[in-house]
């Protein structure tokens, strides 16, 4: 019988270097407290080598641990001074590993609890799962507005403008425009509105107008959820048409 080479699918995916180290320790049936981390080093390195195309920014944690392992290994082959400090890298890494193993156990426990709880339905869940749910609106800070604003400006900066606009904008005119839009639509989606504007100049003027209007309690900025979109509404307490 001819043996056909089995195509091996790489299924191992480790969340971080500690995960991989623990896997190797378990694979070699070692007790975490007695292992010489130096022994595991070559296996660890071969995992990294076999991984096709290392992405340094994503896998830097793996590389750091690899460096620590190599350091530990080099120390193990060198003669040691008698009174070795408590803070040897080996001890430190072992300690982190033991702590990490606990975390994995807790995660497993939480996962079991999650499974049992998933079987129970609460009234809350239907609201969560159906489309017509009401959001609890949270007022956003000027800081959050500014964050989105700078993201949009950065995007606009990269765009190429074909002509130089000679139009100039005024805060008063903008305020009238925004008030009109809100009267018409009920609210303004902050990101969508900013994206539609033509130039950085217009974006700047619009942004300051919005800030001014919020400051004068003409508008209120609300966010549906954390990291969600920000909408601007007329503030009932203020007078929009002035």
């Amino acid at each position, binding site marked *: 019988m001819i043996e056909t080479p089995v195509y091996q699918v790489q299924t191992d995916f480790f*969340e*971080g*270097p*500690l*995960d991989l180290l623990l896997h190797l320790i378990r694979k070699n049936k070692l007790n975490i407290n007695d292992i010489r981390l130096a022994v595991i080093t070559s296996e660890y390195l071969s995992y990294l080598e076999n991984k096709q195309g290392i992405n340094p920014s994503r896998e830097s*944690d793996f590389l750091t*641990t690899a460096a620590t392992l190599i350091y530990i290994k080099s120390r193990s082959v060198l003669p040691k001074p008698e009174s070795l400090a408590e803070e040897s890298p080996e001890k430190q890494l072992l300690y*982190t590993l033991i*702590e*990490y193993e*606990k*975390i*994995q*156990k*807790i*995660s497993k*426990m*939480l*996962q079991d*609890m*999650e499974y*049992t*709880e*998933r*079987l*129970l*339905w*609460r*009234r*809350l869940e*239907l*609201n969560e*799962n159906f489309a017509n749910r009401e959001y609890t609106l949270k007022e956003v800070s000027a800081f959050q507005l500014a964050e989105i604003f700078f993201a949009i400006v950065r995007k606009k900066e990269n765009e190429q403008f074909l002509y130089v606009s000679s139009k100039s904008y005024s805060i008063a005119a903008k305020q009238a425009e925004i008030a009109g839009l809100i009267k018409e639509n009920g609210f303004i989606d902050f990101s969508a509105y900013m994206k539609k504007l033509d130039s950085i100049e217009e974006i700047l003027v619009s942004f300051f107008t919005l800030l001014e209007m919020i400051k004068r309690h003409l508008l209120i900025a609300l966010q549906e*959820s*954390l*990291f969600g979109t920000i909408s601007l509404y007329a503030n009932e307490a203020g007078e929009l048409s002035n």
Partner: protein
Amino acid sequence: MTSEQAALIEAILFVSKDPLEPGRIMEFLQISDETEFEKILQTLEKEHFLDRPERGLQLKRSGGGFQLVTKPELHDSLKDFFTVKQATKLTLASLETLSIVAYRQPATLAEISDMRGVNATGPVKNLLQKKLIRISGRKKVPGLPALYATTQEFLVYFGLNDLSQLPSLEELTELFEEKEQPSLFK
């Protein structure tokens, strides 16, 4: 317990979305003795729900209160009826992050990442969105990093009444060691 009391408690629980604090019902029913109230609850739990296979609900204690939930054996049928896709479960990365926050709270992002050996920004953001953790304050060290702690939703999500119901680290280690170590006398 009078049947009026039982009916009233059931009705209140039916209307409530979040776990109800026992104190509020006790006050409303003018019961001051906690053991007496506990007895009422247990009777209600057993005779009204658990011993009645024709009923689809049960009394569940979590998040420092109690609420009505469906019986676990109905899960599959409910899923079919409401055509709900497989409910999203927490990823392993999120579970690990949550474990650290639960046992080390309040903890900073750096502390969490350090313990996992891998950056935890993604999972932390995810857990904040799911409201399983919250920012409980700032650590008084350079940079004033945010401190994360678990929420009441966390307790409800995992069916815990309060944080003390989580096994201690020592208990946990014993628990797992017993499981992992095969008997010496085979």
